């Protein structure tokens, strides 16, 4: 087994189901009971115990979807299922999140959905201080292993019993209590850390991020993707660029035509976390990084004219999807799959921005950003008037271009944070 390195300094923890799935074959009562049983699995094997609380619980349980502001965005059905935060003093410590897009089931075969109890036992292991284990029999293996049977009869594997006992002490047993199942001895996991040997090899045909003029910009799972020609850059929620070098669209997004030279707009749908790409009169829907069959389809599906769009984004203020083209914009409701009445409207309703924007994103800070050329505008919260002090430089504020003037030629890389040497951050 493997431990996270943090542990609760108390043996009585409080818990609460803070939110339930939007649509689930399980009732709220069933979900509540499964959570209780999953917690009790751990308390049966150690001197930890749990008490349900009405507020301020140590372990707050939520069902969330997509980016939910904790650095671990969900990704629709499959992929990532859930996560929990290790013990600690931070308010989020112990909190446990399940992907609301999964079909959560109780003791059903894998083809029906994902067994909520099995995943909950695993996640509560994290909430108590266990890390992922490579032991074959451990519930703390990172990969979903299917249903674990009747929750009332489930017993932790020996590997996990040893781990929880080490953290909180062995449960004092009555002589008639059963011993844990599967007493298979395993060796402690000793992770191997690969050596790091950075290299710097910049192809010459890639676009210059410092010149901005992006084709499309999208918030996908809490990261901002900047698309330009056949390339894209990724900005993490921490505002770090994954790399100064762009990645090739066709090596990451699978299913776009090979001769597609650029995209017009991209956004993540609110209703199912799928990602939509636009180019001209065509659009593609992606499940994660793979295009779904049956695409491209025509923009007329949205009720949009065939000339293509400049921008698409979901306004966090109201959860609606907006499409921009030239001097007009439309508002779309993902849940009814219909364009709202009264649209298109004039772009000048968004005060302070020009027409023909490159793209728009709602960022994780709750604000909305309009991009055009080398400039961007910020709209705080639900405001439709750009903040004072904008537009500002995209290159400087988003692309890590350390420049005194935006007209600085690319041939002077050291002034753009692109010098050829490798420098550690601390030096």
């Amino acid at each position: 087994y493997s431990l996270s390195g943090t542990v609760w300094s108390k043996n009585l923890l409080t818990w609460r189901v803070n939110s339930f799935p939007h649509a689930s074959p399980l009732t709220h009562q069933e979900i509540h009971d499964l959570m209780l049983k999953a917690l009790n699995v751990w308390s049966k094997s150690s001197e930890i115990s749990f008490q349900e609380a009405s507020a301020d619980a140590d372990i707050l349980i939520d069902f969330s979807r997509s980016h939910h502001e904790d650095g671990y965005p969900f990704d629709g059905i499959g992929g990532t299922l859930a996560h929990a935060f290790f013990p600690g003093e931070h308010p989020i410590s112990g909190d446990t999140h399940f992907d609301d897009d999964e079909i959560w089931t109780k003791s059903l075969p894998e083809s029906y959905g994902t067994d909520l109890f099995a995943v909950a036992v695993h996640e509560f292991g994290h909430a108590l201080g266990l890390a992922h284990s490579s032991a074959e029999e451990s519930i703390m293996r990172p990969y979903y292993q299917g249903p674990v049977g009747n929750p009332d009869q489930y017993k932790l594997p020996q590997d996990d019993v040893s781990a929880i006992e080490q953290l909180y002490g062995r449960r004092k047993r009555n002589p008639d209590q059963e011993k844990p199942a599967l007493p298979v001895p395993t060796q402690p996991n000793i992770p191997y850390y690969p050596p790091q040997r950075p290299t710097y090899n910049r192809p010459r045909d890639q676009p210059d991020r410092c010149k901005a003029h992006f084709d499309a910009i999208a918030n996908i799972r809490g990261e901002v993707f900047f698309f330009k020609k056949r390339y894209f850059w990724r900005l993490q929620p921490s505002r770090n660029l994954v790399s100064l070098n762009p990645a090739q669209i066709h090596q990451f997004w699978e299913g776009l035509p090979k001769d597609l030279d650029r995209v017009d707009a991209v956004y993540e749908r609110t209703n199912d976390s799928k990602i939509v790409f636009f180019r001209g009169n065509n659009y593609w829907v992606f499940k994660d990084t793979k295009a779904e069959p049956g695409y491209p389809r025509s923009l007329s599906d949205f009720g949009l004219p065939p000339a293509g769009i400049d921008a698409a984004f979901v306004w966090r203020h109201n959860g609606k999807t907006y499409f921009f083209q030239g001097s007009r914009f439309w508002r779309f409701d993902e849940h009814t799959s219909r364009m709202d009445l009264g649209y298109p409207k004039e772009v000048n309703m968004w005060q302070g921005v020009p027409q023909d924007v490159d793209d728009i994103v709602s960022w994780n800070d709750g604000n909305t950003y309009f991009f055009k050329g080398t400039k961007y505008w910020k709209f705080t919260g639900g405001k439709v008037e750009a903040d004072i002090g904008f537009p500002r430089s995209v290159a400087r504020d988003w692309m890590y271009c350390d420049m005194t003037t935006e007209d600085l030629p690319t041939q002077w890389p050291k002034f753009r944070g692109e010098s050829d040497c490798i420098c550690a951050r601390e030096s």
Partner: protein
Amino acid sequence: WSRPDAMEISKGVDWLTRYGYLPAPDPLTAQQQTLEGLIAAIKSMQRFAGLKETGTLDEDTIKMMQRPRCSLPDIIGTSEIMRRRRKR
């Protein structure tokens, strides 16, 4: 099995970084991985997952990377450990 294509390698690197087998990116150095570093990371992932340690993105490895799983990394604090090692 056939050789992984560029897309599979790209996704594989993304996966290995996400779950702690490769260090997190640093925007100031924009570092890339060497082939040896990538092979070592793949072997580490394969060892953790109980797969044969081939060091290549073979079919079993790619299939394992596509399985539903917990969001938390398998290797905790790789970047912090790497940073300390670099300092030493």
